[in-house]
Every structure is written in C-alpha cells, then in structure tokens.
C-alpha cells in the first residue's frame, strides 16, 4: 500500500502535543544521569522558537524497554533532556539516541542522531563513518559543565547531518 505522506507540523501544535513532554529517566537511580541540552537554529543562525524535538533511545534486550523524550523548544530554541548514557544495543554502534525534528517550514521531519564526545566507539561506528569527516562533528554532542551540548542547525555552514534510509 502506498504510504501516507508527511505534512508539516505547522506553527500551532503546542496545545496538541505538549502533554507528552515528560520522560524522566526510567531507572530510579541518580548515578549516570546525563543532561543533553542544545538549541535548534535556522539557516541564519537564529533560534527556531517553534520546533518539536523527539529523542529515542533503544533499550538493550535484557532491559525493560526504551526511552522516548518529547521536547517543545523555548523561545530561544532551547531543549534539554535528562537520560542515562545509552548502552550499545548493537555491538558495532557507539552509544547514541535517534532524534526527530519537526517545525513549521519543515514539510517532513528531519532525522538525526546524537553521539557523545569521548566515546572510543565513535571511531568505528558504522553510521558516523558514512558521514564525511568534515561534517561528522555535527553529530557528536560536546561535553560541557552541565552535560552534553547538541545544537541542531537546520541549514547553513555548519548544517547538522540529517539522515534518510
């Protein structure tokens, strides 16, 4: 069957989608919690104040499941998620989360991934290695005093790498 095509999320989704903006770490422990924070920016480097960011973290087979986080960015395009450092579900792949970005002006969602600075497995990750070295850093969150910083640049000189399949 022909799949149903995508349409933009539009400007006025807050009252429909904000309710699911929860998602504390599933595991009740304080150690190992990391904060991923960042901004969504447009082609002129300006904040996108009406973006929707979703992050998905696959669980391991022995784990009870996966984690899903929805965030509606603030007026400066900022979002923030507390989670546990992902484990490598697939032996080949470095720890990462899948990311969806929706916004007015985006006909369909953008799909990217967040990897983490300092992980040895980044060097051999098969998806990072699909990306030209000059653009690979856009997928790797930088260590900060608060956690890991992951800016999403929709367009421009340092445009984030987005994926298709």
């Amino acid at each position, binding site marked *: *069957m*022909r*799949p*149903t*095509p*995508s*349409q*933009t*999320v*539009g*400007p*006025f*989704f*807050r*009252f*429909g*989608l904000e*309710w*699911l903006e929860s998602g504390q770490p599933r595991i009740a422990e304080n150690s190992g919690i990391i904060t991923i924070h960042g901004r969504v920016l*447009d*082609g*002129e480097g*300006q904040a*996108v104040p009406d973006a929707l960011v*979703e992050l*998905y973290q*696959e*669980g391991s087979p022995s784990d009870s*499941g*996966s*984690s*899903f986080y929805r965030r509606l960015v603030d007026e400066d395009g900022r979002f923030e998620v507390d989670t546990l450092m992902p484990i490598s579900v*697939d032996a080949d*792949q470095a720890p990462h989360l*899948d990311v*969806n970005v*929706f*916004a*007015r*002006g*985006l*006909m*369909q*969602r*953008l*799909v990217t991934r967040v990897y983490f600075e300092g992980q040895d497995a980044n060097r051999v990750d*098969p*998806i990072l290695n*699909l990306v030209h070295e000059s*653009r690979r850093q856009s997928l790797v969150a930088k260590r900060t005093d608060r956690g890991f910083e992951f800016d999403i640049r*929709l*367009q*421009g000189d340092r*445009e*984030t*790498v*987005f*994926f*298709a*399949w």
Partner: protein
Amino acid sequence: MKVQYEVVETDVQGHSSAKRFYQVDPEYNSEDYRSSRLRSPKQSLVVIPDRLVSRTGPVFGNNMVSRDERDLTLGHGGDPLGERINVSGRLLDSAGRPIANQLVEIWQANASGRYIHALDQHPAPLDPNFTGAGRTVTGLDGSYSFVTIKPGAYPWRNHQNAWRPAHIHFSVFGNRFVERLVTQMYFPGDPLMDKDPIFQSIRDERARLRLISKFDWDTTEPEWALGYRFDIVLGGHLGTPVEEE
C-alpha cells in the same frame, strides 16, 4: 524520510510486472512555502543502509490516555459550535497489517478556523467549549476513532489571499521509530486544496489522495454526526516492495 518506495505494478491479468520507484513525501525545500526557506537543509541527506536502521520504537501502552480524550466535544461547559463529526480509520503498515496499541494524537482549529494557540491572530472567534486536541490508542485491528467538529478553513500570510483548506493534524507512531509520521487530514471536495502549497508539496497524485478523508455513511449517526474515514499507512517498512492497490 524514506528516500523512495518500490512499487510492483500489476498488469491487466493481475500479474506482477514492472517495478517502479517513487517518492511519497514532499521535498524539504519548497519555493511556494515561505517558511521552508531558512529551515530546510541544503546538504544531501546521508542514506542509512537498511541493516543499520533502528529496529524498535517507543511503546506507549493502553493506559497512556483516558477514554474521554478521543472525544474533543467533551470537557467544557457546553457543546462546541460547528458540525459534529466522527473521524475514524485504521493505522496500517505498508504491507497492510494493523499497527495495534499505538498512540494517535490530533489537533485542529475550531469551526470558525481559529486555533486556541496564543499566536493565532486570525480575527475569528474562539469557542469557549472547544480546545481542539485529542488522543487515543489503536485497537488490536489498528482502528482508532475520534469525535470532534469539522474545522474551518483559515487565512495565512504565505502569499496573497492564502487560505489553508480545512484540516486535522495527525501525529502517529509505528512499530519502529522510522515509521513516525506527522501529517494532515483533509476533507473531500474542498476547493482550497488546489492552491494550497502544503498539500500540493506532494508531487505524487495518488500519495496526495491518501491525505483526503472519505465521507462515510457507516459511521454517520442519524440525528447526531457525520462520519469521515481516514486510514493511515506508515512507510519505513524496509525491503518490502509496495503493492499497487
């Protein structure tokens, strides 16, 4: 996005013949949709091979939403203004199999074409008895249903005399994260679809038709509400050619 879908076309005898590739989703950059100018990527997307695409997706379960949340006409002091409608359908994968226990969220303007969102400046009245957001979880057969009112068309500033056709926004999840879809449902016979750059951003005509609900007598209730059917087919099902209907 899935780059392209492979369609197996059938000849008049019903034999599978030519395979054709096509793209259902709109391009990111659209000349006619002003907001896409600074927000659409200019670099090529990096294509992930099937074997590396995430196999799972979020699971929400049945107790995520209460039963009342599928009826957008409830929860206020009185009945909303407008034409009461039942919107129902099934959530399917591209092989036609039901996607059970998954979250379906909708949001929409009221009968006069006004969203409750603070930034909506359209000089049409808000309805104190209508918010316009609902959610439900699909049944074992992939079915869902909502009760709401028919949304009005509304103007926007994309171009001279620009009007959005009446539509309901849908957000759905599939079995895998790659199947995630946000889209819009339209109503049959709406003349505004012809000039709407958002609807027209989909080049494939048969894919566009997927977004238009069908009026349905079976879910039309006497003395109560009109029925519209809207089935949603999720792509991202890897390695399986799409059968032409």
